[in-house]
């Protein structure tokens, strides 16, 4: 797998540290770790990451799906959701943003790896 540049949107500091380390161990570059929508947008514009790992349940006015929705509609960017759960309503909302995958908490290294690999091949397909 080639190295991807990844933005992590997660509002729990401990979990975000863990994701950052795991992603780095898998050989990817973390371009930012943010906990809120406004920071996410500014980092995305500045860093143009290949991939965004997006927690769904975020504090603040916009949850992960709302952020992903704007990214998808305005910039055509798709995310990988990280979530502790999803009810059918939430899943339906999330599906509309055409995500590259879902990771259910607690995160398992092999699952993270698999979802990232799949996402990477889908991104390169689109580019090719």
């Amino acid at each position, binding site marked *: 797998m080639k190295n991807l540049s990844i933005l992590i949107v997660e509002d*729990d500091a*401990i*979990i975000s*540290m*863990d*994701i950052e*380390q*795991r992603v780095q161990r898998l050989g990817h570059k973390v371009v930012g770790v943010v906990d809120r929508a406004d920071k996410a947008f500014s980092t995305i514009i500045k860093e143009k990451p290949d991939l965004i790992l997006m927690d769904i*349940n975020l504090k603040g006015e916009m949850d992960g799906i709302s952020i992903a929705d704007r990214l998808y509609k305005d910039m055509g960017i798709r995310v990988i959701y990280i979530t*502790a*759960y999803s*009810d059918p309503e939430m899943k339906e909302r999330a599906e509309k943003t055409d995500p590259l995958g879902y990771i*259910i*908490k*607690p*995160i*398992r*290294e*092999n699952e993270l790896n698999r979802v990232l690999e799949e996402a990477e091949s889908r991104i390169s397909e689109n580019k090719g």
Partner: protein
Amino acid sequence: MSRQIEESKRELSRVMELLKDEPRGLSITDISKLLNMNRNSVSKYLNMLLISGKVDMRSIGVAKVYFLSHRVPISAMLDYSSDAIVVLDEKQKIVQANDNFISFTGHNRNELIGLRIPESTLPVVTNPTVLKTINDLLRGEGEAKEIEWEDESGDFFYLVKLIPTVFDEGNPGVTIILEDVTEIRKALREKEVLIDEIHLRVRNNLQVISSLLNMQSQGIVDRQSKEALSEAQRRLSALALVHENLHYSSDQQHIKADEYVKRLAEDISSGLENDCSGIDVEINADLSLGIDLSIPFGMMVNELLTNSFKHAFPDRRGGVIALTLKKVTSVDYVMTFEDNGVGFPADFDRKNITTLGLSLVKNIAERQLSGSVDIIIGNGTKIIINFSEENN
């Protein structure tokens, strides 16, 4: 003859006068003494008053005590009720409505009395299901029925009770009671949201612990210490997987044993350092487990699977792990866990289990699930666990 009737009337009113002054009631003997009337006459008059409904009788021990009836007019009763009540005649016209029904409709009493329900624009009672039930009941079809009604915005909830009614002259009618259940429904909805929130927090907290263990293990070079932390993480994951499966189940109270074991086996085998690709897992556990049993069951299976994946098939040799779960009574289960690997070491002592994994299995079965663990030493590994959900 007329003199006799006059006398009866007079005696009847004497008995009633006396009872009026004695709200705690009087026996035939009391009345006989106080009125200086013979017992047979007292008994006769009391029977007449009982039949006409003017007097009630209650047995207190062996004594029979008579009272004046405390009759409340039905309309007053209806107004006492906190529900909205309306009574329809056989033409579906309103013949009676209590104050709550009147204020519920926003009309005044004169507008309502005589109004035919099907032609009205009244709320709730003109709902098609309610109208159909009214028709059925008036035709003598079906029994009293409860219908749940919700307004389009989901802001108001009523429980509509329809009761077949017979008027004094014998004509059929229907009594409709509207119970406002908005508060309780909203409270239930809030409870569901709260439960979802708690599920979310449980799983998020498990993730925080898992993250801490994961980060902690990164700096550790010592193999044994690193492995200990991995074990702890695996146990946590097995626990989290129960919560995940509970959350995705239809009632949030049960997990499907076979689906759980399959996912758990995949997670364990892919997370271990040794290559498990040649190991097949056969699961025969088409059972649903309740919330109390799911966690201990998950913990036991996690230990057994981890043990087999890690130790039973060294040098990348393939093999089969088989787990069968059966329910033998309404509360008793038998789980058989087998693999065709290298089996327990020669010096393994069934009586003195020293590994944490097997010790967890044994104690969960014995201490928590009133069960037993049978380790059969032979080719490969065979462990039979009996357990029960009784007292859980």
